[in-house]
């Protein structure tokens, strides 16, 4: 499954924050998105995931191939680690074994009966990432996946991503730190910042930008 993004513009709060974004993500490859705080990484990933409409441009992959992991982990504090994963496994139709395998892969087997509320920040994050494994989807969209992870966990996660790539999947990763994925290409979003911020065409901002003409 190839993800081709062409001439994409995305908006947040009625303003275009990135425009002309284009890249192709081939199966087996990873692409790291870089850029300063507030440049629009989260916005870009949400747009590609189909959660918000693009201003213009095209995205080739169908939402059915994409698995998105956001800043928030989507964990239910009152369910055990295992129950949390099993739920997503049945939603995505990947079966019960998938949850066990994912727990094992993220080294959470020992914590599987603990309620999610009783995990530390990094343990929660690992559980959130384990969800990717049970989606069974080829293209991963990851928003700062390694927040709160210690070095061992970062390495573990890099290994998981590498295995996913080797199996023909691909990953688009927004991150500020070095993941140790040497084979990944990097895309600096600074280049797609509009020279001048402008309101979204057809949105409220643009419609009224020039509504009254020059004030008398």
């Amino acid at each position, binding site marked *: 499954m190839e993800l081709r993004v062409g001439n994409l513009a995305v908006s947040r709060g009625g303003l275009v924050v990135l425009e002309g974004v284009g890249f192709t993500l081939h199966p087996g490859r990873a692409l790291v998105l870089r850029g300063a705080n507030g440049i629009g990484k989260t916005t870009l990933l*949400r747009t590609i*995931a*189909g*959660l*918000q*409409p693009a201003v213009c441009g095209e995205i080739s992959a169908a*939402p*059915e191939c*994409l*698995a*998105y992991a*956001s*800043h*928030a*982990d*989507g*964990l*239910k*504090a*009152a*369910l055990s680690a295992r*129950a949390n994963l099993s*739920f*997503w496994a*049945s*939603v*995505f*139709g990947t079966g019960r074994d998938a949850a066990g395998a994912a727990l094992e892969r993220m080294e959470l087997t020992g914590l599987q009966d603990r309620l999610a509320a009783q995990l530390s920040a990094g343990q929660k994050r690992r559980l959130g990432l384990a*969800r990717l494994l049970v989606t069974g989807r080829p293209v991963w969209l990851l928003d700062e996946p390694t927040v709160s992870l210690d070095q061992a966990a970062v390495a573990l996660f890099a290994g998981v991503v590498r295995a996913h790539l080797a199996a023909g999947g691909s990953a688009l990763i927004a991150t500020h730190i070095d993941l140790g994925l040497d084979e990944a290409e990097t895309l600096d979003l600074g280049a797609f910042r509009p020279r001048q911020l402008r309101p979204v065409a057809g949105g409220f901002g643009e419609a009224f930008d020039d509504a009254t003409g020059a004030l008398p």
Partner: protein
Amino acid sequence: MIALLLRDLTLAFRAGGGFGLGLAFFLLVAVLVPLGVGPESGILAIIAPGILWVGALLASLLSLDRIFALDHEDGSLDLLATAPLPLEGVVAIKALAHWLVTGLALTLVAPLLAVLLNLPAAGYPWLLLSLAVGTPALSVIGAFGATLTIGLRRGGLLLSLLVLPLYVPTLVFGAEVARRGAAGMALATPLALLAAITAGSLALLPFAAAAAIRVNLR
């Protein structure tokens, strides 16, 4: 779909999950009203069907904001929206789960509370029937209202304001059925209307609600 229903039910039965509390609220209304109004049982018997319906309505109203807001806060709603489930189905399932833990439960305990309020014996079956037919409408309409306020933290009270006018027809016909039942009058018309409202909301509102969720996520 079934996984979602089971998860919502499990969460409702967990500590702090809301099951039992809707019931408790219903009970408390039934207890507070006699405390506030005074104990003359003649008056209580007259107002009993209405008060029980108002109590059921408030109890289901108060648990509405859990339907979507929790999932939105912890990010699950984003993930559900990208999962292979139609959003309309998600709304319907969540409304069903809400009904099972509030509407159905309220219907089953209502006769007990009717004793507290001195409802005449003839009224019991009709009270039960009116609640059984009417509460699904309360859950679906409520789920629709909840989708409008997803993005607002603690939108609970705004939600009440939005949903209550929508509840009026259900309340009027529901209470009318219960009242006429208690008084031994004919009640086919309000019962038919109540059923029509429930059927109509079940058929149409999930679509409006799914549209509202999409707006809220973007």
